[in-house]
């Protein structure tokens, strides 16, 4: 197990190098120099040629790409991800700040989604083809067709504009969390209902459920102890894949509710060509993504003892 984790973490290194290099190249595909936009933001006016040259020299943008990249990589290895070009704040600190904001939104909304989807999905599978099942399937099918940001706008329209009881944006008070959480949670719940239903339904057809029934277990026990536990394996796997929502998937919702999460943070950095931030962000989220996948794998292992880490190639994390 520890060996497995170690091997997976070793795999981080090439992915980190490749993704950060791609990110670096990406910035140089850009038609414009970062100096232009960043200086303009800094001084609220068109920068002069002198300012631009000075800026490039200071941040080393006048050197060849590879030299820049290796020196950045060297610093990154030592935990120094540099400073934002726009406001000089520490990239790592900024990332952690947005990370916490994203985590609040993501985990609360996923919890909400699970709270909605689990009972509906399980009951739907249990009473397959019943009226309730048809209803919940239609509900989730319509639901997954709604864009999350639009759902957010509808919520804002109802709660902030019509009823005027919830703030429509912001981050400071716990009340601010409610609407973005609802928007994201509801929109994730739709696909989750479908997932829970199919997973449970699939499990319910398996032989060991018949065995459980033959033992004289009650339907409730069968559902909780046998069906759900097995059905949770694909659900957890998919939830793990959904972790991408954490790193930018909620960008529309975040921008809509002015939530200072990772998506918002990254979109801002990308459009202002804040190279150290883009770089650091790509690197940190690649690390996060791989670690998150690893955690999900370990959780799956807990849920499913059949998974054997030793026979599995550490390279394959898709």
């Amino acid at each position, binding site marked *: 197990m520890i060996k497995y984790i170690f091997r997976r973490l070793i795999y981080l290194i090439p992915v980190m190098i490749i993704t950060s290099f791609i990110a670096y190249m990406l910035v140089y595909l*850009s*038609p*414009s120099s970062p100096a*232009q*936009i960043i200086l*303009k933001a*800094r*001084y*609220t*006016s*068109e*920068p*002069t040629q*002198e*300012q631009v040259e*000075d800026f490039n020299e200071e941040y080393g943008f006048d050197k060849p790409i590879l030299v820049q990249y290796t020196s950045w990589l060297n610093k990154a290895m030592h935990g120094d991800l540099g*400073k934002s070009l726009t*406001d*000089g*704040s520490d990239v790592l600190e900024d990332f952690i700040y947005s990370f916490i904001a994203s985590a609040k939104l993501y985990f609360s909304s996923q919890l909400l989604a699970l709270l909605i989807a689990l009972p509906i999905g399980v009951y739907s599978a249990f009473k397959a083809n019943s009226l309730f099942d*048809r*209803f919940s399937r*239609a*509900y989730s099918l*319509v*639901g997954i067709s709604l864009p999350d940001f639009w759902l957010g706008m*509808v*919520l*804002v329209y*109802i*709660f*902030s*504009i019509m*009823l*005027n*009881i*919830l*703030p*429509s*944006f*912001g*981050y*400071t008070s716990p009340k601010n969390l*409610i609407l973005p959480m*609802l928007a994201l949670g*509801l929109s994730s719940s739709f696909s989750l209902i479908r997932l829970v239903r199919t997973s449970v339904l699939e499990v319910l057809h398996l032989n060991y459920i018949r065995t459980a029934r033959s033992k004289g277990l009650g339907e409730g026990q069968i559902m909780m102890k046998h069906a759900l536990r097995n059905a949770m394996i694909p659900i957890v796997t998919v939830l793990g894949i959904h972790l991408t929502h954490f790193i930018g998937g909620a960008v529309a919702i975040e*921008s*809509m*509710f*002015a939530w*200072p999460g990772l998506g918002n943070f990254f979109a801002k950095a990308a*459009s*202002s*060509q804040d190279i150290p931030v883009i770089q650091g962000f790509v690197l940190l989220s690649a690390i996060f993504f791989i670690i998150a996948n690893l955690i999900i794998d370990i959780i799956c292992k807990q849920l499913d003892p059949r998974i054997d880490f030793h026979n599995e190639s550490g390279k394959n994390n898709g």
Partner: protein
Amino acid sequence: MKFGMKSLLCFCLAALMMVGFVGCSNVGASSKTEQTELKVAYGKDTGVASEKGNGDMLLTIFAGERLVEVVDGEVVPSIAESWEVKDSGKTISFKIKEGLKFSDGSDLTAKDVKLKFDRNIATKNTSWTEVDRIEKIEVADDYTINFYYKDGMDGYVALAGFAEYGNTIVSPNSFQTPGDPTTPMVKFIGSGPWKVADYVKDQYTTFVPNENYSGDPVKLEKITVSMIKDDEARVLAIQSGDVDAVVDYYHGGSAYTPRNLLSSLKEEGFQVLKQEMPMTTVLAFNYTNNEAWKNLKLRQALNYAINKDEISGLFDGWISPANDAYFSDCSPYTTALGKQSYKYNPEKAKSLLTEAGITGFSPKMIVNSENADEVKLAELLQSMLKESDINLQLDVMDATKYAEVKKTADWDLCSYYIGGPERRIYSRNEGRFDKTAPEFGSSGCFTSDTIAASVQKAVDPFDEKERKAGFKEFYAAIDAETACVPLYYDAVFVVANEGVEGVEFIGSEPRFDQVTYKK
């Protein structure tokens, strides 16, 4: 279809679910009571801590002061009690008020003033601060500071530059290494009416009265400025009662209250305070790269082809159309009401185009996507110009690309602005119409020798009468040569709850020093 009904039912269910989340509602106060705190929504971070910058203008207005201010086109004293212009303008000597203190209690002396200018020079913060005009700064004594100017860089425009917010004087203790202006600014200690009590980057800044302020003390006990980046979100914030006011400052078109929301805000009972600026949004020609624009008839045709009243309609009439002249009445030394030199006339535009020998004209306009109003304006222009058989091509792009494309020949028209908030009218007009000016940069408006000469006469003289005559000549010159197409006169707005009283506009920008608030 069978599931048509069902999806409908689902929507109802979803709606019911949503309504189901309704919690408790606010209990409104019945009688009005005097408030001690005001909550303000603002679109930018105040930048209390910054590596190279000087803090956002809201911060410098609230918590800082400058040597001078510009009011009604005139430079007036602030930290400087008086000044003396020597060597026919090449030296300006300021006499600083005695007894001024920073908010941390330390004294404000000429040394501290020099420190700020040293910082701007060291960090190359030359935009609008006019520090690149300066040859040398000399502290004569504790309360006297002399600025020596480079050849040809002097003039009234240089003096007005001291009112720029980038030249706000801060305490040496504001820097990471106190007294070293090249180190990052870690806190903002100024001499303004307010001081910063609390600051969370990109979230909020809290201001409390600065007890060391030399002027009239502020009336409120606290102002919290929430940073809400999204324009619509700021409006929703005041509608939902999370803030008491939404404030614009002039930021070159970003972070302002969407104009087309003002009417509905007014209807909902909010106060909408407007301050017109001596600034005009114009359509600029890319004449440096495209020869075609050197034809006066073509420039005039564009001017006749645009219906400025409809542009005003885009903003629900909250912005005045530039029908009268290139600048509104609040610009220095102008009374241009009713001049109407280029009244909307598509027929005339067409005939001018024919005269110029141009058919099937399809100019390309570049638009910065970050400014939603600019995009809408461009779409409106596109449909308007069709009336005069001009087929306007739009290319909407983000700010980065926009800045890049703007330097090339790959565009014909863009939205631009001339003049500015009061502190910038001298340098901006010089920068727009005189190629030799430091602010001219990569692209000014159309200019000619006549225009350039006239703008110098307007911004250079220290003598008011000379300046006035210069401005008249300048206004006439750009009008005669159709330097650009004036579209509308810009303004800044403050939207506030009913009980908010006493918002002042000084040098085009709103101030909350004397504000009281009853709720």
